[in-house]
């Protein structure tokens, strides 16, 4: 029973993936629509099951197997067989043979083309079906009988029991509208208005963005043709649907992240499509072969290859992680753009302990100029902004003198200078400009340099491996330094005196009016008072969820869930709810814990925990707050959401924000968070939650959402 259920998913996906979706409803609609021509329907379903069985036996990549990647070409083959050939004994046997050929071609092509990241689209079907057509048209008897064109026509316009409604619709609908629906049905080799309508509804449920692209491309193509009169009788509904509209949908929302530019690209594909359709028709007419969706394949694959080769474009991004939904792809990219600096930069910490002041920032007025502009000078100041204790005549009177200087990240020591004398106050040593210096290599093309250290204070030597926070030496007054200070810069080359590189610090506290705020991935400015984040050990320990961590959660109503933490092949950690199958990816960078994405059942306790602990800073200062935004709107208002989806590539008017702070209570720490929606300047509270932490472990959480009160306890853990 379980196996059958597990089999239904790839079957339905084989249908929905025709429209780049994994939506079950769309899959069911397409399955039903394919049976409008019962022979095609049976042949298609048979081919899907046959090819799924083969790929399952061959133990091919199970993810692609489940997504229907190996079976949708067979589906097309089956439907086309049913549409083009008469049923007889040979029909079934040749169908099986052809289906096997499609599977073989699919695997060859997908493995070869997958390397540079290209899709196979319907190429296997086209190639195999050409072979079949050429064989059946040959002088030898294959036993396959092509339906006569009149027969085809008859099937397409169909006298069946749909005729009444179909006929009524054909006359009562405006010509363009009925053409639109017929074009959609063409993807399944049909010419049914009702089939098209059902497919349209399915696509609308699957994705508003994709649907809007279908309409835009349809109108563009018709408009373009009415101006240019390339096809005096109008474009064939088949090419409209299977080539032009599908191309626009794929390139505009599936392979790229939907945006203004992706929409423009999709529109621009229409005239190219015209050229390709005409050219390929002429070419293949020599062999009396129909071109099917070849223009769609050629256009999509070549544009995609082009985009891969030109590299990253901020405003026209390729879809890196495919969620099979233009909306999900878009919302995740938008969300991660602002949130995933942890994966983009090396995590640099400040090279000292406690609060220091920046006496000269980037492009400062004293010495940070030109190519050496991206450097920072640090000193320690007191409440009166003085850097020294009375009388300030010796380096020892200065607060920063002889204070530990640390490695800002893991690395290998490249260069050390340790012999330069410390200057008297007010003197500068321009001859040995940088004074005592340590250069550390963190990665290819990223070196940090610390200068003006105290003479003979450097504790490391070239070749030493240092960890973040290791003691390198002590702050001094050597080189071009009239008073003790620490010079810090990042550079692309290992030399002392290299030009500087702008690079942010991962996390630091910025103190203003005696209140600290957490800055992330920023470059501190002149006169700012900054320190490494002060970390609450108990909070940090509570969220230190290493792979293998298991927890059992018990809700108020007695429902339990078992969670375990895993790491995937990309080294990303996630919590997996064994009970509901839900998955929540998270990052813990030592300063904060935050979730990056959630998949699965939205009634799982894991989902509520994801909402409650979306972002937690490991600091218990009452006024420090974590602010963030959720990727996908949480609201229940479907109409509003759909409107948002339509507009999303260009403008987002709903945003769901998250805010959390730590309250210290008699029994440990409470992480109090609020989830609220911002819509047209109005703030609407959505949920309120509290996570309880005590003795360095998670104890419980409560959340009030949509009038529901959910409370769960961690009952066991390791």
């Amino acid at each position: 029973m379980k196996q059958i259920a597990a089999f239904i998913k790839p079957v339905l996906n084989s249908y929905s993936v025709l429209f780049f979706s994994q939506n079950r409803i769309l899959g069911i609609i397409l399955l039903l629509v394919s049976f409008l021509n019962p022979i095609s329907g049976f042949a298609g379903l048979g081919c899907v099951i046959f090819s799924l069985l083969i790929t399952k036996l061959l133990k091919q990549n199970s993810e692609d197997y489940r997504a229907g990647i190996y079976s949708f070409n067979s589906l097309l083959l089956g439907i086309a067989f049913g549409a083009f050939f008469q049923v007889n004994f040979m029909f079934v046997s040749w169908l099986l043979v052809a289906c096997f050929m499609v599977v073989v071609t699919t695997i060859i092509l997908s493995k070869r083309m997958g390397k540079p990241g290209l899709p196979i689209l319907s190429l296997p079907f086209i190639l195999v079906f050409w072979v079949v057509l050429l064989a059946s048209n040959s002088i030898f008897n294959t036993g396959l009988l092509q339906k006569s064109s009149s027969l085809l026509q008859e099937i397409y316009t169909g006298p069946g029991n749909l005729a009444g409604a179909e006929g009524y619709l054909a006359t009562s609908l405006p010509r363009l509208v009925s053409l639109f629906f017929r074009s959609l049905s063409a993807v399944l080799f049909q010419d049914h208005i009702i089939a098209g309508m059902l497919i349209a509804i399915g696509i609308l449920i699957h994705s508003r963005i994709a649907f809007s692209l279908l309409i835009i491309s349809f109108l563009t193509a018709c408009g373009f043709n009415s101006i240019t009169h390339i096809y005096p009788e109008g474009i064939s509904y088949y090419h409209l649907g299977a080539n032009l509209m599908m191309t626009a949908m794929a390139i505009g929302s599936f392979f790229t992240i939907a945006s203004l530019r992706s929409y423009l690209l999709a529109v621009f594909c229409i005239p190219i499509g015209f050229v390709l359709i005409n050219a390929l028709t002429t070419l293949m007419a020599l062999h009396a072969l129909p071109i099917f969706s070849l223009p769609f394949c050629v256009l999509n694959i070549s544009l995609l290859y082009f985009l891969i080769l030109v590299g990253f474009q901020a405003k026209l991004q390729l879809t890196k992680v495919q969620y099979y939904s233009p909306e999900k792809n878009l919302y995740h990219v938008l969300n991660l753009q602002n949130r995933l600096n942890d994966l983009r930069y090396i995590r640099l910490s400040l090279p000292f302990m406690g609060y220091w002041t920046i006496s000269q920032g980037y492009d400062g007025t004293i010495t940070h100029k030109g190519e050496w502009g991206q450097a920072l000078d640090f000193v320690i100041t007191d409440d009166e902004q003085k850097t020294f204790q009375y009388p300030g005549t010796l380096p020892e009177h200065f607060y920063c003198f002889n204070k530990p200087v640390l490695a800002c990240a893991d690395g290998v020591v490249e260069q050390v200078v340790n012999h330069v004398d410390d200057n008297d106050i007010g003197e500068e040593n321009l001859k040995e400009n940088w004074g005592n210096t340590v250069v550390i290599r963190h990665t290819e093309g990223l070196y940090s340099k610390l200068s003006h250290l105290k003479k003979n204070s450097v504790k490391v030597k070239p070749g030493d491996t240092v960890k973040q926070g290791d003691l390198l030496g002590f702050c001094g007054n050597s080189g071009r330094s009239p008073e003790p200070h620490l010079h810090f810069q990042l550079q692309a080359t290992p030399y002392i005196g290299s030009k500087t590189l702008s690079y942010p610090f991962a996390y630091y506290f910025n103190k203003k009016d005696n209140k600290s705020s957490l800055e992330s991935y920023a470059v501190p400015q002149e006169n700012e008072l900054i320190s490494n984040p002060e970390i609450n050990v108990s909070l940090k320990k509570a969220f230190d969820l290493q792979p293998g961590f298991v927890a059992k959660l018990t809700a108020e109503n007695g429902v339990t869930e078992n969670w375990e933490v895993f790491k995937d092949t990309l080294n990303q950690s996630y919590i997996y709810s064994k009970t509901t199958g839900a998955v929540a990816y998270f990052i813990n960078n030592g300063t904060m814990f935050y979730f990056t994405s959630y998949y699965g059942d939205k009634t799982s306790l894991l989902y509520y925990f994801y909402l409650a602990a979306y972002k937690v800073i490991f600091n218990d200062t009452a006024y420090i707050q974590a602010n963030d935004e959720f990727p996908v709107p949480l609201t229940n208002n479907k109409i509003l959401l759909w409107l948002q989806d339509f507009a999303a590539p260009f403008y987002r008017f709903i945003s769901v924000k998250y805010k959390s702070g730590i309250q210290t209570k008699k029994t440990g720490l409470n992480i109090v968070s609020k989830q609220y929606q911002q819509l047209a300047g109005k703030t609407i509270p959505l949920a309120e939650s509290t996570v309880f932490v005590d003795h360095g472990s998670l104890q419980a959480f409560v959340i009030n959402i949509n009038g529901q009160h959910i409370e769960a306890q961690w009952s066991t853990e390791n």
Partner: protein
Amino acid sequence: MEKLPYQKPYIKKLHAGAMNKFGTRTGVQPVKSIDGVSVKSLIENYGSPVFVLSEKQIRKNYRAAYRAFSTRYPKVQFAWSYKTNYLNAVCQIFHQEGSWAEVVSGFEYRKALGNGVPGNKIIFNGPGKSTADLQLAIDHDSLIHIDHFDELNQLLVLSKNLANKPRVAIRVNMDTGVYPLWDRFGFNYENGEAWSAISKITASGILHLTGLHCHIGTYMLSTDAYGIAANKLAELAVRCQTQLNHKVEYLDLGGGFPSTNTLKGAYLPGNDIVPTIDDFAEVITSALLNFGFANDDLPLLILESGRVLIDDAGYLLGTVIANKRLANGKGATIVDFGVNILFTSFWYEHQVSPAQDFVAHSENMVIYGPLCMNIDVIRESINLPQLNPGDQVVVHKVGAYNMTQWMQFITLRPAVVLIDEKLRTHLIRQNETLEYTAEPELIPAHLNNAK
């Protein structure tokens, strides 16, 4: 022309010493205001005598001390030593700055709770904790610093069958090269008592050994002692980790840093001989940093400084009552504050400054308090200009211990005033009244004649 102040006739002994370029000046300067608020107005508004505390100076001291440690060591936490000065307003300043609370009695513990300090940020020290106190500390998840085996045994009894293990530390006493050796508090390091206490706690399975604590002395004038103490505590912590597989989260080096008051019998003034907080920080932090902990695994360093953070932020303002000449010809001045409220005058030679202009001549004199007790001597010998009855004086560096160790004896205890950072004055403790002292008293009916 302004009328010259009256100057009493006096006789001065002629000294035949070498001449010096400073002439006969004593260096005494009048102190007419505190943080810009005039002494006169303070006495006018709040009476005489009156304690005055400077919020600005308290915060400045705290920040300087915290800076000294936090720029040398990554994990530093201060805990305000309540016994030094537990006026609620004072405690709140320290808590605002980020200090935890360090208490040594059930009374202080409840005071800290009352000040809104979360239980897990209260350190409970001291040899005299009652069962009720311990139970309270367990309930609030506080850090209990165990002083002796009897307390440990009592805790073991109280901690049976608890869902969360109480967090405890042991107090360790040790030889740091400073005499007298403080061995009356905690468990001894050298004779292995501390280690057996640690073993007993970890073996019990019902107490969580969170930290190690020591308090090697008070008014320590040697920084080396702290280096030795830090090393010995770190050694215990590492031994805990390697032999018992138990990680100690913090090392509490206690307090004991001196203020710049001059101790009685000291040859040189405190300002000249007392090491700065930076000197102590340097020794303690370098001992810990060099001990061999991994830098992301360093224990939290807790300090329980009291005196050094507040002594010089406190002033006692008083008024001269009378002048006298003693039988031996030495001058004596009687002021309106006695040793009952200036307890530290038993230990320190407090600096006393006149609060108004004075004539250049000064004379060696005794300052007596107003009590009818022979012990009531504020200074046995001090060079001051002549003071007339009604003149006001300022006693410096009285912020530590006086406002906790003072006693209601013969006179009533005076008001305490806080000058905030915007130079506004706030009454933070009213002067005592007869009713206040009489309130807890009960008179048996047969003795009650005041009908």
